[in-house]
């Protein structure tokens, strides 16, 4: 997989150019421009579409070709002639080639035992807009784009501290994707930082196409349905996480940032909770918790209650359910599975459909087919209610991955409840709890701060305490700097 590139930069421009032309044959978008600065022969190499031609024309070529005759020494070119702000000298050919492939311009000068790399990265990029998957009521409307420099800028705007570090790596043998981790030096948990750095350095893959690849290669346990890292498109979420002592990883070409380590309560928080007043946020958090619980157990509870222990529900409800299930051909368990699967089909297809059709299909699929199924007597009306409540409550979490994880768990709970009734549901929930207990994210238990509780940490889990009580950082993170507010 490793590329074999000659590392040496020749003194003669023609040799360099010839080498590059051979290396990059069959590439019609590489541009070679030979010119003279005074009496020195030079060449520019850049990629059409990725290099900023205007910068090259105005600030490099114009200057050197008009003023080049005043230069006496080769080494003065960079310091006294080139009116470009970002230029560096490289000694190795491979570095320069990598820069060219990233959009910079490689400049050879005759007689120089190195070459210059001029930063001319410019490509078509999306403008900053609100991420569609994470909308908030109150908060910034900017979101990450695919260019890593813009993303780091967005985060930097929120953290103007000298102790804020932006460390970069290059991952992927062929893709050489820029990966950047950001943290605040005197807050971060040093062990987590070291663990994460080790894991990233262990990655040896040919291409990193998206931050998802990085996430999957560094996470603790890839057999678990629960994500052990948080991902977000919002810079304010990233900044808040960094302030808590966590580390953010940005990957080029991906608008999704990874935040490490992540605990389950973290995945249930949204920036809305902090930007709004605490009473309302606490109520919203509480609603979220209840709705997740309902979405998890409602279909299995229905199956357990109707098939196994009917004495739990009020008598009138029992009669009603029994009456509405008369004539339905399938037992409750099969009904629940059918509805669960059709909900999954619907969700998947709505994501793939083009926007104008997508909305219609949602309505058609949901309402009309459901209604038709009830009228035909295939499904009982109670089931439709249950499925719609489940669907609505499962989307209250701010994080999509948790929703999918819980969907899977819900499916398993339905199966368990059809075998052992209420006991099955309890077993499923206990297994889920144990699994969550076992899970760790980079050394921090997944269920912190509910385990090893410090009373302080509870102010952010079930409710959101008033902001002036947020005096110290979360203790479970083991941060070096503990005080947030006085």
């Amino acid at each position: 997989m490793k590329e074999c590139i000659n590392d040496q930069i020749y003194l003669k421009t023609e040799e360099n150019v010839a080498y590059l032309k051979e290396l990059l044959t069959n590439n019609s978008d590489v541009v070679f421009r030979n010119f003279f600065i005074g009496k020195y022969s030079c060449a520019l190499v850049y990629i059409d579409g990725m290099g900023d031609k205007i910068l090259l024309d105005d600030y490099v070529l114009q200057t050197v070709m008009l003023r080049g005759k005043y230069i006496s020494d080769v080494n003065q070119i960079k310091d006294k002639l080139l009116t470009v702000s970002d230029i560096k000298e490289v000694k190795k050919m491979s570095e320069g080639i990598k820069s060219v492939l990233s959009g910079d311009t490689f400049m050879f000068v005759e007689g120089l035992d190195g070459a210059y790399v001029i930063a001319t990265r410019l490509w078509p990029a999306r403008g900053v807009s609100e991420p569609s998957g994470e909308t908030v009521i109150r908060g910034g409307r900017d979101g990450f784009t695919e260019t890593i420099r813009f993303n780091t800028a967005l985060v930097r705007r929120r953290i103007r501290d000298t102790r804020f570090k932006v460390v970069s790596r290059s991952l992927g043998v062929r893709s050489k994707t820029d990966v950047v981790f950001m943290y605040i030096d005197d807050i971060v948990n040093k062990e987590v930082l070291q663990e994460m750095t080790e894991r990233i350095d262990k990655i040896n893959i040919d291409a990193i196409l998206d931050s998802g690849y990085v996430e999957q290669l560094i996470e603790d346990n890839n057999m678990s349905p629960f994500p052990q890292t948080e991902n977000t498109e919002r810079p304010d979420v990233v900044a808040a996480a960094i302030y808590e002592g966590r580390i953010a990883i940005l990957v080029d070409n991906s608008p999704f940032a990874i935040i490490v380590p992540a605990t389950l309560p973290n995945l249930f928080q949204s920036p809305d909770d902090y930007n709004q007043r605490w009473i309302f946020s606490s109520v919203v958090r509480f609603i979220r918790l209840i709705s997740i619980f309902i979405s998890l157990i409602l279909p299995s509870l229905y199956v357990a209650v109707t098939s196994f222990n009917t004495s739990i529900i009020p008598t009138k409800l029992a009669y009603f359910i029994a009456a509405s299930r008369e004539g339905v051909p399938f037992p409750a368990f099969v009904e629940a599975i059918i509805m669960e699967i059709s909900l999954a089909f619907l969700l998947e297809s709505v994501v793939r459909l083009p926007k104008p059709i997508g909305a219609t299909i949602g309505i058609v699929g949901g309402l009309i087919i459901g209604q038709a199924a009830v009228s035909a007597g295939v499904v009982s009306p109670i089931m439709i209610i249950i499925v719609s409540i489940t669907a609505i409550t499962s989307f209250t979490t701010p994080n999509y991955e948790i929703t999918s994880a819980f969907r899977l768990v819900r499916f398993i709970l339905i199966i368990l409840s059809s075998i052992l009734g209420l006991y099955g549901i309890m077993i499923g929930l206990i297994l889920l709890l144990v699994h969550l207990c076992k899970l760790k994210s980079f050394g921090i238990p997944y269920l912190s701060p509910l385990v090893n509780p410090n009373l302080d940490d509870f102010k952010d889990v079930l409710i959101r305490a008033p902001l002036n009580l947020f005096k110290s950082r979360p203790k479970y993170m083991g941060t070096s700097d503990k005080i947030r507010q006085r």
Partner: protein
Amino acid sequence: MNNKYAVSTFGVFASIIVATVGIGTFSYPNELSQFVGTDGWFVIIIGGAVSYGIILILIKLLQKNNWSNFTLILKNNYGNFVGSIFALSFAIYCIFSMAIGIRTFVEVMRMYLLEKTPTEFLIVITLLIGVYIIRGGLDTIIRFNEIAFWLMFIPIIVVLFLLLNNSDFTNLFPIMSNKPIEYIKSLPVNIYIFKGFEILLLILPFMKVKSRVKKATFCSITFIMVFYVLIFIFTLAVFTKYQNSVLLWPTITMIKSINIPGSFIERWDGIVMTMWILFYFTTFINSFYFSSDIIKNVFNLKETKLSYIVILPFIYLAALYPENLLELNDFRGVFFQSFTMIMIALLPLITLIKGFMSKAGGGGISNN
């Protein structure tokens, strides 16, 4: 896995409570009422005090032996072979108590929730889940205990509030109108309900802040005692001592009789059964892990994971041995109670005394 795992004070507190409060909660008012009528609460307080005494002995034993694990303590004090025998018998005691527990649990489950499911199936499922839990190691178990603590006790307190409507607290009279011999006869019930705190032999060596040991254990025993007294008082208030003596599981029947007009959940028995499952599981997995740990240390196996495979068939067979609940109760009678007392009280006491007498009692190897 982090080798430096340290249990927090709350972890110790929650683990002891959760490992002790188990299936006994649901049946002990019956036995107490049979012997002492309305004075069961007094018996419970005595039981709590005695348990705390035993806990102090255990703590002293651990302190004297430099907080090493239990098997090592036994081996150091009695020599390799005899120490292993004692450790093994302790493990056998754990296995017996687990078997009794599983059988009782499954029988009651069948009674209230699942009438036709075969007992073997339920036992196998319960065992497999126990296996999955203990594969996570000690830190998973402690975390599970901590969460289970909240999940168990908050609903019970809520349920007790709901019972206030139905209860008549004058049923608690007359007080102290029994012959002393009856009190003595009812003391063994305490063994059944306070048994479980020996888990601290496993956990305390890992405790982070060792100076808080006495406080944590004192708080946990007090909590358990208060909880049991409350439940007993409420069963008396809802039923009188006569019904209490007749019903096999007064606590369950008491919760079943909650009736809030107009509420969504008309009959609470399903809810209480689910809570009950959690009560049982915590007791079970703590015992399971402890016995696996002992076997691992006795036979010097590399990991706990192999030892539980050894234990599983024994539990299964022992659980299926009694014919029915009444035989199970006999099983749980004098023989098992004395076995329990020997294991958790006498053995540590003798070891401690031996340690005091022989000068070389201190040098235990600290935990691996």
